[in-house]
């Protein structure tokens, strides 16, 4: 019997940080999911140990100012894409600028420098990733997916999906379904 797992990443991350910091005897407070205030400065050795422990779980301690800003831009975009209300992307530049308290031009510049790509591309990437998740659940039609992600039409959504992944939503869905069928068949043997 196949069960579908939904992950509450917020809880997972908080628990992980809690366990690891406790293990290292560190007292801390979470400013938000991405910023942690430790009540003392860490020695090189402790920082190094903590860094490698976190790395095992795919968590990175980021130090360069520009990288930190890029990470914040990405978080803000992911938040926008994942919000339950219909996504209003025409206001993204304003939203980012306001949230991060920098001009959009400055944010764009830093983002491009660090990632070799653009904010606009990243937004499209995240939207298409979200579309893939929605398609994978099997609960939504392509029209519903395109509506949720604020595309002007299902056709426009399909076009962007194909431009980004090289596959149409239909092809993608077919592969996901066939993979699951194969997995079930293999498990039965």
């Amino acid at each position: 019997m196949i069960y579908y797992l939904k992950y509450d990443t917020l809880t997972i991350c908080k628990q992980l940080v809690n366990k690891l910091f406790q293990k290292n005897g560190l007292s801390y407070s979470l400013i938000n999911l991405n910023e942690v205030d430790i009540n003392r400065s860490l020695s090189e050795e402790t920082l190094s140990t903590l860094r490698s422990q976190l790395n095992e779980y795919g968590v990175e301690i980021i130090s360069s100012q520009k990288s930190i800003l890029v990470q914040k831009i990405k978080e803000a975009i992911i938040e926008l894409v994942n919000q339950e209300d219909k996504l209003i992307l025409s206001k993204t530049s304003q939203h980012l600028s306001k949230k991060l308290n920098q001009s959009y031009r400055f944010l764009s510049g830093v983002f491009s420098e660090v990632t070799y790509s653009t904010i606009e591309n990243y937004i499209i990437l995240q939207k298409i990733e979200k579309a893939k998740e929605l398609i994978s659940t099997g609960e939504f039609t392509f029209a519903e997916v395109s509506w949720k992600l604020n595309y002007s039409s299902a056709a426009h959504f399909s076009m962007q999906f194909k431009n980004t992944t090289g596959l149409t939503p239909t092809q993608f869905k077919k592969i996901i379904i066939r993979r699951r069928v194969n997995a079930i068949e293999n498990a039965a043997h």
Partner: protein
Amino acid sequence: MSNEETIRILLADDDKEDRADFLEAFDGLKIKTTIETVKDGIELVNYLQSPSAVIPDLLFLDLNMPKKSGLDCLIEIKQMQFLNDLTVVIYSTSSSEKDIEDTFLNGANIYLKKPSDLAVLRKTLLHVLTVNWQYNTSGLNRDNYMLQL
């Protein structure tokens, strides 16, 4: 991509000229890469399984190879847990729908049809590296990592 990191690439291709073109395409790119090549499926699997192996970030896998086909290699590779995070790029002259679908079904992440033009190849490879880096740094779901170029 971080300026300090070197991306490790492994190419499995039986065609000597294709291997040379591939290496030449990377020559012009501003991103740091190290490239290893193997010339057939058995050499590939041995390479990945050797105790001293440094697992690459990306594997470019030709479908039509003697001794062991690219598809057979893909199936075998996808059963090895320690290679779960290896991005597999199918690098092939074929554009058959069935080939493409079969490779995605069996866990390939990217399907790249070999371009005949070096400039196009260079541009495409850069795109592959960029996308792959985004997948690695943005916590995206690898199960949905599928790209056809």
